[in-house]
C-alpha cells in the first residue's frame, strides 16, 4: 500500500474540508481569493479521481482503512467503481456550479456571507464525497447529518422568508429521516454486531433467519429515512419549496447532487448488505418499483400545474428521482445501468436547467412562465442551452436523457416487466407537455419588445458553465461509450453481490 494513489479518496475529502474551513478566514482578508480557491479545488479533485479510476482499472477495487485499523475496529472506505463514479459526478458538476456562482451570488446572497457560502458548499461536497466512499454505517450516519445541515444552511443563507421557512421544513423532516436511519442502524447492529458493511453482509443471512422482524423493520426504516432525504414520492413534500426558493447555485447542487447521493447510499445498503435473500423474502424491490412509477407520473403531473419556473423544475426532480429508484429496483443489469446513468445525466440536465433559470431570474427578474414570452430574443444563448436541457429531459434521441431512458426501457424488458416501459413513455410525454411550451414561448412568443436577437448581457462566468453543460448534454447523448463502460462496471458491482 505504498503507492500514494490509494490515498486519493481521503485526500479528495480532505482538500474539500480544508477549503471549507480556509474560506471564512481567507475571505476576511482576501475576498477575491476565496472564490478562486473554491473553483480550483473541485476540478483538481476531479482530476485526482480520474487518476484513481485509472489505478483501479489497472488493479482491482480495494478497501481503505482509516488509521490502518482493519474492519472490526477501524473505519473503512470502499474504493469501487460505484463510489468513484458518484464522486466524479459530484466534483465535476460542483466545479461547474462554482464557476457559475461567482456572479450570480451577488444578486442573491449578502456580500459578507459569500465566504460562508463557499464554506457550506465545500462542506457539502466533502460530506457527499465521503458518503459515496463510506463503507461503514457509522460514517454514513455522520456524513448524512453533515450533508443535511450544510444543505439546510445553503437554503437559509438567502435572507428571504420563503427560504427560511423552506429550510426549516427541510430541517424538521430530514431530522425525522435521520432518526429513522439511526434507529435502523441500531436494529441492524443489534443482530449482526458490526457497523462495517462487509461484516454486516456476512452476518446478515444468519441474522435474518434468527431475527426476521429486526431485519424487516430496519429495512423499512432505512427506506423511509433515506426516502425522506432523497424525496421519494410520498415523502417529497419538502423538496419543491426548498429547491425553488434557494439561491440558484444552491438549487442546482441540491437538485442535481444532494438528492441523488442519498439514493445511492440507500441502494448500496439495500443491495450489498441485505442482499438477495432478504429481498426475496419480501417484495421490497417490487414495492420500490411501484412507488417509483407513481413518483414519475405524479411528479410530472404536479410539474404540469406549476406557473413558477423554478417550482416546475423542482417538481420535475421528484419525477426524475423516481427514474433512478426504478432503474435500480428492476434488478436487471441493464436496468441498474439505466438508473446509474440517469444519476449522471440528470445531474447534468437539472443543473443546466436550474442554472439557466437562475440566469433568467438574475438578468430579468422574471419567474413566471407566462412572462417568458419572447425571452429568447433577449437571452438567446441562455434559452438555446435551456432548450438543450429541456429536450434532454423529454428524451429526444441525440441528447443524453435518451440514453438513460433507453437503458431503463431495455432493463424493464429484461426484467420481464414491460409494463414499466409504458410508464417511461407516458412520463416522456408529460415531460414534453411541460418543458416544450416554455421553449416554444421563449422563441416564438411575441409578447416582448420586437426586434432582432440581441446579445446576451450575461457575464462570461455565467454563460461559460451553461454552454459547457449544454455541450456535455449533447456529447454524452451522441458518444456515451466511455460513460457506459464505467457505469457497466459499477452496475456489475451492485448486481454481483
Amino acid at each position: 500500500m505504498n503507492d500514494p494513489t490509494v490515498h486519493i479518496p481521503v485526500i479528495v475529502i480532505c482538500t474539500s474540508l480544508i477549503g471549507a474551513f480556509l474560506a471564512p478566514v481567507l475571505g476576511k482578508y482576501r475576498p477575491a481569493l476565496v472564490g478562486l480557491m473554491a473553483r480550483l479545488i473541485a476540478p483538481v479533485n476531479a482530476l485526482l479521481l480520474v487518476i484513481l479510476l485509472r489505478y483501479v482499472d489497472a488493479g482491482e477495487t480495494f478497501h481503505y482503512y482509516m488509521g490502518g485499523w482493519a474492519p472490526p475496529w477501524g473505519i473503512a472506505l470502499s474504493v469501487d467503481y460505484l463510489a468513484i463514479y458518484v464522486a466524479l459526478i459530484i466534483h465535476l458538476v460542483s466545479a461547474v456550479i462554482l464557476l457559475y456562482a461567482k456572479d450570480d451570488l451577488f444578486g442573491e446572497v449578502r456580500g459578507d456571507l459569500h465566504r460562508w457560502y463557499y464554506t457550506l458548499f465545500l462542506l457539502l461536497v466533502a460530506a457527499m464525497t465521503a458518503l459515496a466512499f463510506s463503507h461503514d454505517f457509522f460514517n454514513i450516519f455522520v456524513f448524512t447529518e453533515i450533508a443535511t445541515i450544510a444543505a439546510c444552511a445553503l437554503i437559509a443563507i438567502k435572507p428571504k422568508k420563503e427560504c427560511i421557512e423552506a429550510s426549516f421544513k427541510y430541517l424538521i423532516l430530514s431530522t425525522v429521516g435521520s432518526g429513522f436511519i439511526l434507529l435502523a442502524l441500531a436494529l441492524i447492529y443489534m443482530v449482526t454486531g458490526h457497523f462495517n458493511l462487509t461484516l454486516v453482509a456476512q452476518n446478515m443471512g444468519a441474522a435474518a433467519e434468527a431475527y426476521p422482524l429486526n431485519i424487516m423493520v430496519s429495512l423499512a426504516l432505512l427506506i423511509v429515512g433515506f426516502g425522506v432525504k432523497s424525496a421519494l414520492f410520498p415523502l417529497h413534500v419538502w423538496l419543491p419549496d426548498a429547491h425553488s426558493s434557494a439561491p440558484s447555485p444552491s438549487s442546482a447542487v441540491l437538485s442535481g447532487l444532494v438528492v441523488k447521493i442519498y439514493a445511492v447510499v440507500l441502494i448500496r445498503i439495500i443491495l450489498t448488505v441485505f442482499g438477495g435473500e432478504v429481498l426475496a423474502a419480501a417484495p421490497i424491490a417490487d414495492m420500490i418499483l411501484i412507488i417509483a412509477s407513481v413518483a414519475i407520473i405524479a411528479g410530472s403531473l404536479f410539474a404540469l400545474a406549476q406557473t413558477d419556473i423554478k417550482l416546475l423544475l423542482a417538481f420535475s426532480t421528484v419525477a426524475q428521482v423516481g427514474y433512478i429508484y426504478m432503474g435500480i429496483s428492476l434488478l436487471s443489469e441493464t436496468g441498474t445501468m439505466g438508473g446509474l446513468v440517469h444519476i449522471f445525466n440528470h445531474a447534468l440536465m437539472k443543473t443546466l436547467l436550474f442554472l439557466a433559470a437562475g440566469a433568467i431570474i438574475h438578468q430579468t427578474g422574471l419567474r413566471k412562465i407566462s412572462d417568458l414570452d419572447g425571452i429568447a430574443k433577449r437571452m438567446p444563448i441562455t434559452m438555446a442551452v435551456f432548450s438543450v436541457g429541456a429536450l434532454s429531459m423529454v428524451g429526444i434521441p441525440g441528447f443524453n436523457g435518451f440514453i438513460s431512458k433507453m437503458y431503463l426501457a431495455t432493463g424493464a424488458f429484461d426484467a420481464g416487466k414491460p409494463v414499466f416501459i409504458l410508464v417511461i413513455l407516458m412520463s416522456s410525454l408529460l415531460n414534453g407537455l411541460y418543458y416544450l411550451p416554455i421553449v416554444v414561448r421563449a422563441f416564438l412568443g411575441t409578447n416582448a419588445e420586437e426586434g432582432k436577437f440581441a446579445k446576451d448581457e450575461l457575464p462570461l462566468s455565467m454563460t461559460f458553465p451553461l454552454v459547457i453543460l449544454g455541450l456535455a448534454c449533447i456529447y454524452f447523448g451522441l458518444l456515451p461509450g466511455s460513460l457506459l463502460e464505467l457505469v457497466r462496471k459499477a452496475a456489475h458491482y451492485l448486481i454481483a453481490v
Partner: protein
Amino acid sequence: MDDLVLQTITRILMPFIQVYGIFVIVNGHLSPGGGFAGGTILGASVILYALTFNVGAAEDLYPDDLAEAVESSSVLIFVLVGLFAILMGANFLTNIGIFPSPETGTLFTGGFVTPLTLAIGVKVASTVITLFTHLFGEKKP
C-alpha cells in the same frame, strides 16, 4: 445584571471551571470525557461570564475574528495531522510514533490523540461561545 455577589463569585469560579474543562480535554483518552465534553465546559465558563456581566463583555473577551480563526485552524490541524500520516507513508490518521508514548496510565500515552482532542476541545468551546453570543446579541448568526 450588576450584582456584586454574582460577579465576584463568577470571577472566582471561572478559573476552576476552565481548569476542569482542560483536565477533561487532555485526559480524554484515559478517563471519561474528551474534546467534546471538555470543550463545552470550557465554553460554559465564558457563557457564565457573559450572563453575569453582559454579552458585550464576553464579545470583548472573545472577539469574532479570533473565534473564526480558532475554529478554522483547529479543524485544519485535525485534517493536517491526518494528512501528515499519509506523508509518512501510512494510512490517513495513522498513529505514527512521532509523539512520545510512555507507559500506560500517564498523560501522553495516546500518541497524537491528545493534540487531536485538544483541537476538538478548542473548536467546540469556541463554537459554543459564538453560538451563544450570536443568538443573544443582535448580530446575524
